């Protein structure tokens, strides 16, 4: 099981790096998807190797996928709105909520 969990940890770290360093909001959203996938690999691996008397881990992973899809839809429409108002989607532009 260790290789699967290690893969998940590495993928999560890659996503974390992307979230921390991207200037582009779409880039941040893509890194978030990487992190969701890392969490899903963890759920499915534990379901496969430890809690084999049910499919609860896979059910959780399915719900995560659905919620991630909803998050992507709303997030990208917010990105479109930001682009329409500021003509750019860099995180440097978006500071009007900071005071």
């Amino acid at each position, binding site marked *: 099981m260790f290789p699967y*969990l290690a893969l998940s*940890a590495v993928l999560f770290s890659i996503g974390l790096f992307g979230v921390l360093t991207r200037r582009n909001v779409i880039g941040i959203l893509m*890194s978030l998807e990487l992190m969701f996938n890392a969490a899903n690999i963890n759920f*499915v691996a534990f379901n*496969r190797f430890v809690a*084999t008397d049910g499919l609860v881990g896979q059910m959780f992973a399915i719900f995560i996928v659905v919620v991630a899809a909803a998050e992507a839809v709303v997030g990208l429409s917010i*990105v479109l709105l930001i682009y329409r108002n500021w003509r750019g989607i860099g995180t440097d532009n978006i500071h009007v909520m900071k005071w």
Partner: protein
Amino acid sequence: MEVPEAGVVFWILSVVIIVSGMLVVSLKNIFHCALALVVCLFAVAGIYLLLEAEFLAAAQVLIYVGAVAILIIFAVMLTTDLASGKITQTNENATIAFVACVMFAAVAMFLIKKTRVWDISPFGLSFDNVSAIGKYLMTEFMLPFEVVSVLLLAALIGAVVLARKERS
């Protein structure tokens, strides 16, 4: 079914996942990042297949590769000037963020390696995957299933309201 060892397929898939994930967070052109994300999500679907989660693998390809990735590519094309791939895409925290992420990965690996309390089941999953998931959705996970459908409806309406052009 006996528990499979992490075979050569797993290593190929994980190399693909890690390399394409690094491309997602490091490429200059955001459109190329989206394409690398598609590759990464496909490889994760392969990992699900290895872990006997066939329905989840199919859902991953349908939802992520088919819907979310297309959505992201649309958003990239609607918002970014693709010709100007020269603008720097990372902020000034890149070095320290890299160090922090490597340390996070190292600590996580150390803890995973150290924890030995999981008793690995000697048997695999003995279900017919798709029908078992259908039964779960209609019995134990009925309420989350309904709630998540309401959530999807809310996201749909919210996206339409947000992205609609306001009439002046």
